[in-house]
């Protein structure tokens, strides 16, 4: 265990060195952060300029949901996103054959592909999302209790586990169809999580809770933070997350067998 922690520290160090080599990117990333924030906030603000509540969600509650959406995005961008994305796409490891070297390393492949790249500027996004959450809580006039925080963290853990499992499933898909734009598919689907799943019609809501579990990714943590979330929902989410994790790991192992290198 200590060995893996040391390795992760090493991964963080090398990623930091690689990132700081491209300083001009920093300004662009900063701009992107600002744009994501503006788009997220504007969507909710414009909606609530026309209505008082939507499906029982008030403005501060919807703001908290935006905060969770940004938080989940930032957490993904810090590590698992960049790590898994380097597998797929044109110029990715599987396409170019550099995956040979990843396979040869004396480490569990799943550990290596999941944690090797860190994008530290995403910590700025993380901070910003926490500010949004703080503002939302202040406007709700709700004090954050210790049990409340614990429930939120559990919901967030479930959410991130699901995000990881879904990303791993998509990343494994690269071994079956090399051109799959992995990040694009995930970004498209997660957009649904900008708003509470309750606003979608029944059939879509079921789909978004159990099949593409966007509901567990953003709605449930936001509910945990702003009000009540039934224990049964959390249990269901935990079971779903565990199931997806096992499935994704198994699918990765299956997919790895298909890898036949590239060029010579």
């Amino acid at each position, binding site marked *: 265990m200590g060995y893996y922690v040391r390795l992760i520290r090493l991964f963080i160090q090398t990623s930091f060195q690689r990132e700081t080599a491209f300083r001009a990117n920093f300004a*662009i990333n900063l701009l992107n952060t600002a744009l994501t924030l503006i*788009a997220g906030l504007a969507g909710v603000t414009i*909606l609530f300029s026309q209505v008082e509540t939507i499906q029982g969600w008030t403005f501060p509650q919807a703001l908290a949901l935006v905060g969770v959406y940004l938080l989940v995005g930032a957490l993904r961008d810090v590590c698992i996103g960049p790590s898994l994305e380097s597998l797929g796409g044109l110029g990715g490891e599987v396409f170019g054959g550099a995956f040979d070297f990843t396979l040869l390393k004396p480490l569990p492949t799943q550990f290596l592909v999941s944690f090797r790249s860190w994008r530290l500027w995403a910590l700025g996004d993380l901070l910003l999302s926490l500010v949004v959450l703080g503002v939302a809580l202040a406007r709700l006039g709700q004090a954050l209790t210790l049990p409340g925080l614990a429930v939120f963290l559990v919901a967030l853990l479930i959410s991130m586990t699901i995000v990881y499992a879904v990303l791993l499933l998509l990343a494994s898909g690269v071994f079956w169809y090399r051109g799959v734009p992995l990040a694009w*598919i995930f970004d498209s689907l997660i957009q649904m999580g900008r708003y509470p799943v309750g*606003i979608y019609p029944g059939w879509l809501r079921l789909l978004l809770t159990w099949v593409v579990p966007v509901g567990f990714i953003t709605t449930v943590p936001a509910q945990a933070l702003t009000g009540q979330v039934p224990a049964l929902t959390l249990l269901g989410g935990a079971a779903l997350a565990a199931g997806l994790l096992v499935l994704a790991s198994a699918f990765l192992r299956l997919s790895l067998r298909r890898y036949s290198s590239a060029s010579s």
Partner: protein
Amino acid sequence: MTLQRMNLRGGWALVRKSLFRYMAGRGFFWTLALGWMMGPLVYMFVWTTAARQGAAGGFARGDFVLYYLCLILVNQFTYPVSNWTVGDIIRVGGFSAWLLRPLPPIYEAIATDVATKMVCMPFSLAVVAVLGLVLRPTFVFSWPAALAFVLALLLALALRFTLAYVLALVALWSQRADALLGLNDTFLFLLGGQVAPTALLPGVLHGIATVLPYRYMIGFPIELLMGRLSRAEMVVGFAWQVGWLAAAVLLHQFVWRRGIRRYVAVGG
């Protein structure tokens, strides 16, 4: 005259080249198209839910469904993929090959766009048709509205493409145009009629949206089709649209003449 004809033939050859290459990877392009329609779908559901609690800004449920189904198609039809590819190609140096062809490089960009649209549109049309059957939009057809829609749609296509192309050409100076293009996309999202029909934007934003070019790239044609504009609003809208298109074309001439002298090939 002969030159013109040759250019058209050359342009069509470029379209066919891109089209065949894209058709081979149509799964990829359909995935892209799916991503492009996801945003409008989310906002369709948001606003129809809002409308079920009471009409929002004069839009009823069926109006929102129609608006956003049209938006998926208009957005797909006017979406300039070349704004990303041109910037990238300048950065990695592939632009040199474009310059060597006996056609202006803008033909390559147009060909990429036409081919992408030809690959993606059937997919988007099929999805929208299914959604239309399930969600039942309110639609009243009238010839004048349809004609105004087609005219505004073509102008929107030209305007959105030209502005994106000009922004991508900024890469001739700075190697990267991604930041500018990202900014452009955010403005389109906020003021083009995607996050909400521009008529529903609160106070100041509504005023800004009427003046800036973004509404005339996506939202304006749909408003015409739905017959939501008075005659005066229509005339003013077309005036803004044509004015912005002229401005964008002039800007293109200026940026192109200056930029091409700055181009330094990268890579080998």
